[in-house]
């Protein structure tokens, strides 16, 4: 019965009690800019270059290491898998996720990572090493 509901999309893996695993990617990020947003709403924030994070209700932009200086390590996962040495909390807010999917993409709209979420509003926290050209971005969902 539960499997049928899962297949029909009435419940998801979180209702089933499954934990999503934290996934990682090492990417040379063009223009040092990553967008974390709902998969179907593309309301990007105005990036004025000052600071390290910019956001709209459905999207957050984070600065990271320039591609010419090397790759940035990007991790996305659940709070239960947070590493011990997290760094500095840069962003903690609710994002609108009506598509129930969060993607991480570059300025050229290339998907780097993506994760399913259970609700249409999702708490997103982002940790970095505290620098604007951080080489580590940890995104925690929920």
């Amino acid at each position, binding site marked *: 019965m539960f499997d049928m509901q899962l297949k029909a999309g009435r419940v998801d893996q979180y209702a089933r009690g499954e934990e999503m695993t934290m996934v990682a990617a090492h990417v040379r990020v063009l223009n040092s800019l990553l967008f974390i947003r709902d998969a179907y709403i593309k309301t990007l924030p105005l990036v004025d*270059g000052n600071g390290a994070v910019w956001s709209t209700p459905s999207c957050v932009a984070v600065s990271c290491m320039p591609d010419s200086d090397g790759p940035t390590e990007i991790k996305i996962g659940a709070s239960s898998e947070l590493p011990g040495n997290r760094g500095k909390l840069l962003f903690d807010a609710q994002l609108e996720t009506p598509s129930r999917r969060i993607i991480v993409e570059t300025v050229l709209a290339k998907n780097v990572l993506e994760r399913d979420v259970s609700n249409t509003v999702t708490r997103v926290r982002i940790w970095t090493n505290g620098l604007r*050209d951080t080489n580590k971005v940890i995104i925690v969902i929920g």
Partner: protein
Amino acid sequence: MPPIPPAAFAHECDRFLRHDAHRFLRSDWRRFVLPGSELAAHYARIERKYSSDQPRVPAGSSDGGQWTSAGGSSGRNDPRVLSDATPDPIRPGAQYAQNRRRGGSGTVFVNGQLLELTPAQAARLTVAETQARDAVRRVQELDPSWKPEPSLFATAEGYIAAYQADAQEASARLSELQRVGIGPGSFAGKSIPARGPERDFTAEERRAINSIGVESGCHTCGIKEPGTAGGNFVPDHQPPNAVNPLNRIQRLYPQCLTCSLRQGGWISTRGVKK
């Protein structure tokens, strides 16, 4: 010295007179010239030579554009008659011609009518058109989808003003693009040739870009502090890869982290895909 016969004098005047001499006559010249004098007759002849109300032979015939006498099918009742008369005022919601002229014709098709340009207007129009076309082309090299706002005009002066407005709008757009790092910025100094759109910079290229950055600063904002932990400037392709579909030759300029982020923000909101 024998007197010059009046007919010969008139002929000589016509030979050495500017074709646009009427433009040098004040409209109130009669206030200053003795009536019946030789000068008055001469001025009157010049004035008669040009009359904006005089009808012309319509285009399409062998002597199209030539002055003609009133009456007949070539008269003012002919809808094809060319005239400097002010056309009907612009009506809100009405459809108007917006295709501008091509080439150096002395007439323009505006609001369903052919308007004759004075030589001065034609010259100003040519200059305004050239400047506008050049400015728009420079913007479209960086932002291909950009177009100046369409405008309505009903007179020759409005036509010229529309081109001047286009040039100003394009110039403002170019400045706006430079501020977000699209196109070499106003602080651009030296640059080095890019090997291609690839971003696998060599150590020598990094050194050269850092050296230029220390000397002239970020090409977009002029700041000499790159803002990165490693103290390296970001090598910036100009024109940027994202707005270089024609693979024009690129050069590398030093850019600070702040301007690089701002450039990325602009590129992402434009929805440019590689």
